[in-house]
């Protein structure tokens, strides 16, 4: 650990940043630029979740050229590839070193309270008091598993996507994968390839081709402005913040991973897991509709790309518009599965994540366990980072941290200068804050 990382001592500091992932480190860099004294508290190591809470084969869903942090563009030789987890950990750790971030590792925040306009932070390695605080502990602290998991018979091995590493953890035999986001599809494909027949329970999902008209779909998302879309411009902020990750995989051949690819390989699709009763899993009869919703939305997205390309002239050197087959659903979709028959030996829950704010004793968490915030401004002097669509669609992306820490860093600096009152400011359409 560089010497500088130890410069802050337990005690009083202007800002405490919780979490030394890419968001927390980007904010630390911004605060250093603004000469604001701060400390970054990290329960484990730098980039801890990337190190310990991801499966072995995972690669980023964004191409390397997009992986940038403030002052640190991608510098490798494979701009169109996708980083594996070791590479992400290397990228984030190098960033922490280069920026000399004042990180306290192996320091778990146990309790945060607001007292007399400042924050009291207790950790297992001493206490801090700060005028402002940044929550950069991520949105994926706990696996979110439906209540019906409790009704799964004991003989079935269960694991969440947070603990899953590779198919070898699972017993031989059939596997029910629940969830059809990027996670569910990637695990379904890898587990099925390991010789364990997979049944995939599919609810609402987001379908996207990996490449479109010769370009990575993330290029289109960025170039056409979709990733920069501001939360203030969205009709239904609650819905967009809850969208599952698009069905994508980062692989060397830039392959598209969709439900058609899985069924072609022999994966059985069923509807959303609706419940488990007397050892029987029950699946919703809505499979056809969730698939046609996803197909229609994908077509609208690609049409929006085409329209953008035609308007801006970007289309000229490009391959023509492409069409993709509708999601194929068999004539007869099983509505139930007897979990005691021996056909299914394990269940993999790829049903999403939720943040853990049990340590945050400030009344800013709603009844669904989500942080209430206005574009990342939570309360006077209290900020969030890295949450889905927090300020912009890209807020939860690595490259999304740059704009968010610039905006929130400015706001935080003004707060410390007492230029901002108690009420959090509101976002306007151009994402500038009204102070």
């Amino acid at each position, binding site marked *: 650990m560089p010497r500088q990382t130890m410069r802050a001592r337990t005690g009083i500091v202007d800002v405490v940043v919780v979490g030394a992932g890419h968001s927390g480190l980007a904010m630390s860099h911004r605060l250093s630029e603004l000469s604001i004294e701060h400390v970054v508290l990290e329960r484990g190591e730098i980039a801890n979740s990337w190190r310990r809470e991801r499966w072995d084969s995972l690669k980023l869903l964004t191409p390397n050229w997009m992986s940038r942090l403030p002052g640190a563009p991608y510098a490798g030789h494979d701009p169109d590839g996708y980083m594996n987890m070791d590479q992400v950990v290397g990228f984030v750790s190098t960033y922490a070193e280069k920026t000399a971030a004042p990180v306290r590792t192996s320091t778990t925040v146990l309790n945060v309270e607001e007292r007399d306009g400042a924050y009291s932070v207790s950790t297992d390695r001493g206490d801090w008091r700060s005028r402002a605080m940044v929550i950069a502990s991520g949105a994926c602290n706990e696996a979110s598993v439906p209540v019906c998991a409790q009704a799964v018979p004991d003989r079935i091995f269960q694991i969440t996507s947070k603990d899953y590493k590779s198919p070898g953890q699972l017993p031989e035999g059939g596997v029910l994968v629940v969830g059809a986001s990027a996670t569910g599809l990637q695990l379904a494909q890898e587990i099925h390839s390991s010789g364990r027949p997979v049944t995939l329970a599919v609810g609402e999902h987001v379908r996207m081709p990996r490449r479109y008209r010769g370009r990575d779909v993330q290029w289109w998302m960025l170039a056409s402005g979709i990733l920069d*879309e501001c939360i203030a411009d969205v009709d239904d902020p609650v819905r967009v913040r809850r969208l599952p990750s698009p069905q994508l995989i980062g692989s060397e051949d830039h392959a598209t991973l969709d439900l058609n690819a899985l069924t072609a390989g022999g994966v059985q699709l069923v509807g959303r897991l609706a419940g488990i009763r007397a050892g029987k899993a029950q699946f919703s009869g809505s499979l056809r509709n969730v698939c046609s919703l996803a197909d229609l939305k994908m077509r609208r997205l690609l049409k929006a790309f085409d329209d953008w390309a035609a308007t801006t002239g970007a289309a000229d050197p490009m391959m023509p518009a492409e069409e993709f087959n509708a999601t194929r659903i068999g004539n007869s979709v099983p509505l139930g599965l007897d979990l005691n028959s021996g056909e299914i030996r394990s269940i993999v829950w790829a049903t999403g994540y939720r943040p853990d704010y049990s340590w945050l004793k400030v009344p800013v968490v709603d009844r669904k366990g989500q942080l209430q915030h206005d574009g990342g401004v939570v309360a006077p002097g209290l900020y969030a980072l890295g949450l889905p669509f927090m300020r912009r669609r890209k807020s939860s992306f690595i490259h999304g941290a740059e704009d968010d820490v610039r905006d929130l860093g400015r706001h935080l600096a003004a707060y410390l200068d007492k230029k901002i009152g108690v009420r959090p400011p509101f976002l306007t359409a151009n994402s500038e804050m009204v102070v």
Partner: protein
Amino acid sequence: MQKQQTTSKQANANNGVNVEALLGAREALTQAPEAARFKWRASCEWLNGTHSRTTVDEYFGLGEAQKHRNVFQFDTDHPQIFASEDNGATPVELVLVGLAGCLTAGIAAVAQNRNIQLRKVKATLEAGMDIQGILGIDSDVRNGFDGIKVHYDIDADASADDIASIVAQSQKRSAVFDIITNPTDVTVTVG
């Protein structure tokens, strides 16, 4: 990217749905989740044979007792080929009535919200059923439908994809679609 793009930019589609009121209710009920808890009620009296009459009148919602403008009654019976008198639709046909009514109402509301003028909406429904189930001939055959097919003919000033998208969104938001496609806990008591 999720915003609707209609082929025609009509300013004022009118499908007879008060979307502003619905959106207002959604806003209000987000703030007051208790008021969103409804109880739907029906009472049924046996008349004779397989013929019954079900009455729908009161329900509970927005925190208080509510009443329909009129009392509605529905006779159900079995057809003559089941040696009954056919005094009303079969109960399973009323399930189709519920599904069609719910999806079609949803289509009107979604189209209104997307500012798409509907000219004609017609649904045809067909549900398959192997009555070996209800007759107890084969225990592997379920009592209920083995599938439901709903077909919509829609005339509206919108592209085929936009119309398909309205129908898909209506299914996504439909109570009866959910009731049919997902299990529901049913408690029956006597006393």
